[in-house]
């Protein structure tokens, strides 16, 4: 066995066909120098582009990332949101030549839409990106590759089109599909050389129902309360069955309990793509009752299955905590270990490391035994680099609380398979973000605006698709000073709207992490000094210490879980008092933020969360 094992880098796949068909070109060949997709001719005409890439090398591989890039050199309008956008779909029937009347079938499953638009006559040409891991993974898992269709996301649009360079265009920028993949499975089994080494996609957590999620929280609390008798519970990825492993006979009785309670529902249930916007008048806006309602709940009653486990929750957590603190004198290669945590499904601790030497494997085996710890080899690009800091978060992944452009990042978000970042809407009134595409923005030139298809105002929020970050977002937030190199992990979103008296923390690029804030008012419409009105903000105050600053806009607002140090998202920073530095007797610091419940209800998808605990380095 050779170490360190390298993981495959990005691979650009060979393009085998690119063509388009449209009302104007009903039976084209494959030799045009351009490609066309969308709606034009006053809604009467349609264009669709068809692409095929050679994916034979991907069969059976784990797809880590896949990006389709098309060079948008001409379009009907410029901007981050133009029409319904252009959608990439997986084709599901064979074809060699397309005509307007004979086109292959497609599926909306794993389809990805990019609403941005570039190119003449109104703005510069630029790549448009589609993050199509889902489609490429379908092919890798055995679905036949009949290619990709590129079309208007909603073909009822009147005008919504882009033109792209084809491979035949002499000036470059051909359709490009870059893919990152790796082999899965055990690299080296546990044995004389030490503990097991494996590779695999570590963050592939199945989407859980609200009820199952609430029941798992309760089961986890039970394991934390009985660390000797129980092991860490989990939801089986295949069946969705909640499983609580027990170490002792007492534990078996505890684990067999039926878990009941109220699960909060409605996260992401407001679909912003549903048409039929309610455009209220200014008078109607003024009379609108602030949305301070709590999310709806559903009763659940879930019986956990009991499994026998060898190691208790307490013993495994103690190992995970200890490994995080070991240095190179105690564990060879400790510097290559970046994350450690319990893998409940396997009743063991997994450390994520960029290399796994025999010395490291044997040292872990000597310290903890052969089956208590395993090493997951990870791509160096997935590692939070130690030289990275809050104001220098430059890697493939970006966490919340980081400096970017004019503001601070909030919380990593997932819209389906598209990695995104939540931040403040007012940071992006006219310009795009250095992070990627501003997909949704609740803040317009005069303050809060309703998102298309939604009837409520949602404060000051933007959701940015992280097209400029290969890895996407990290489910963590920077803590400490503006130059801090430490982060906390994100456990999820708070299940209720903020209430007066709630305490919280803020973590911005300028003022760093400040805690001790108290909610003073909720659901308020606030008129900022420039006459922009932001609707439904939470207002907090702090009577001592450092205040927030304008550059902290977009930063994460959160509480910290006592039991594991993970943060629970409460909101996104919007504003504060003009020219505040330190609180004093006469003028406390004021802080205004958008409740995270508004993001949950307004934005598609959900916050990126992780079961990792402790402080990330």
């Amino acid at each position, binding site marked *: 066995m050779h170490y360190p094992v390298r993981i495959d880098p990005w691979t650009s796949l060979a393009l085998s066909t690119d063509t388009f068909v449209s009302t104007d070109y009903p039976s084209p060949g494959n030799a045009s120098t351009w490609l066309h997709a969308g709606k034009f001719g006053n809604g009467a005409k349609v264009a669709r582009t068809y692409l095929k890439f050679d994916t034979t090398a991907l069969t059976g591989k784990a797809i880590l990332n896949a990006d389709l890039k098309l060079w948008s050199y001409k379009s009907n309008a410029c901007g981050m949101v133009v029409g319904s956008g252009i959608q990439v779909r997986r084709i599901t029937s064979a074809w060699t030549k397309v005509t307007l009347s004979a086109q292959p079938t497609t599926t909306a499953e794993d389809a990805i839409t990019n609403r941005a638009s570039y190119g003449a006559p109104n703005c510069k040409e630029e790549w448009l990106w589609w993050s199509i891991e889902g489609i490429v993974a379908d092919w890798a898992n055995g679905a036949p590759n009949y290619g990709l269709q590129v079309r208007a996301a909603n073909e009822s649009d009147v005008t919504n089109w882009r033109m792209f360079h084809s491979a035949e265009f002499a000036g470059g920028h051909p359709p490009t599909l870059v893919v990152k993949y790796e082999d899965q499975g055990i690299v080296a089994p546990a044995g004389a050389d030490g503990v097991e080494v494996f590779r695999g996609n570590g963050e592939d957590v199945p989407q859980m129902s609200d009820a199952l999620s609430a029941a798992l929280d309760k089961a986890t609390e039970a394991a934390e309360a009985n660390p000797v008798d129980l092991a860490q519970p989990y939801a089986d990825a295949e069946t969705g069955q909640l499983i609580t492993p027990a170490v002792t006979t007492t534990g078996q009785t505890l684990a067999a309990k039926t878990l009941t309670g109220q699960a909060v529902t409605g996260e992401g249930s407001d679909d912003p793509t549903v048409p039929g916007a309610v455009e209220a008048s200014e008078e109607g806006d003024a009379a609108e009752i602030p949305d301070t309602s709590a999310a709806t709940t559903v009763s659940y009653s879930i019986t956990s299955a009991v499994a026998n486990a060898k190691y208790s929750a307490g013993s495994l957590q103690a190992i995970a905590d200890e490994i995080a603190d070991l240095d190179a004198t105690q564990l060879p290669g400790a510097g290559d270990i970046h994350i450690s945590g319990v893998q409940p499904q396997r009743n063991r601790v997994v450390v994520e490391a960029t290399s796994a030497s025999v010395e490291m494997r044997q040292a872990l085996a000597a310290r903890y035994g052969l089956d208590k710890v395993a090493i997951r080899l990870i791509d160096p690009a997935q590692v939070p680099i130690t030289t990275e800091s809050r104001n220098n978060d430059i890697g493939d992944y970006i966490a919340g609380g980081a400096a970017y452009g004019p503001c601070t990042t909030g919380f990593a978000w997932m819209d389906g398979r598209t990695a995104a970042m939540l931040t403040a809407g*007012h940071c992006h009134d006219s310009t795009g973000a250095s992070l990627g595409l501003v997909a949704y923005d609740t803040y317009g030139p005069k303050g809060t605006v309703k998102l298309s298809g939604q009837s409520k105002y949602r404060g000051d929020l933007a959701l940015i698709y992280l097209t400029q970050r290969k890895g996407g977002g990290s489910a963590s937030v920077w803590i400490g000073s503006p130059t801090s190199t430490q982060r906390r992990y994100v456990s999820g979103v708070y299940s209720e709207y903020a209430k007066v008296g709630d305490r919280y923390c803020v973590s911005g690029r300028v003022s760093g992490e400040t805690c001790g804030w108290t909610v003073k008012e909720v659901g308020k419409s606030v008129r900022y000094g420039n006459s922009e009105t*932001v609707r439904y903000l939470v207002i907090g105050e702090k009577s001592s210490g450092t205040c927030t600053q304008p550059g902290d806009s977009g930063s994460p607002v959160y509480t910290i879980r006592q039991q594991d140090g993970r943060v629970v998202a409460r909101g996104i920073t919007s504003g504060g008092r003009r*020219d505040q530095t330190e609180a004093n007797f006469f003028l406390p610091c004021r802080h205004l933020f958008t409740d995270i419940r508004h993001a949950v209800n307004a934005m598609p998808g959900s916050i990126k969360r992780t079961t990792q605990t402790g402080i990330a380095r």
Partner: protein
Amino acid sequence: MKCHRSSALRLAMVATLTGLLTAGCVHSERLAVITEAVISPDERTVSVTFTGDRIDGKVCTAVDDTEVTETAQRVTIGIHLANVCEGSPTELVAGTGVEQTVQIHLTAPLGDRVVEMPDGQSITIRRP
């Protein structure tokens, strides 16, 4: 050195109630967060970049004063900011950050000395 409005206001209020005010103007309490320092080829000029405030489209922070302390091991750079925008300190605003730069001159070449803010936070050095 300019005294910015809100400091003066706060100090005046404190003075009225406590009678402890002895000077008309003091350092602004706001220290800039320095994001990067670019060193010139002769190692004596440092271009310091920090995050200022932009409110209603206006840059509202200006360098009020700089303090540089040099020892054999370290260089401490403090950038004190003043507010240069009109507006009541009780007014609520939603601003953003804005990158601002100021040049600092050293009495000796920087060499391998570390560069810090007055509160001990390290400053990232770049040599172009």
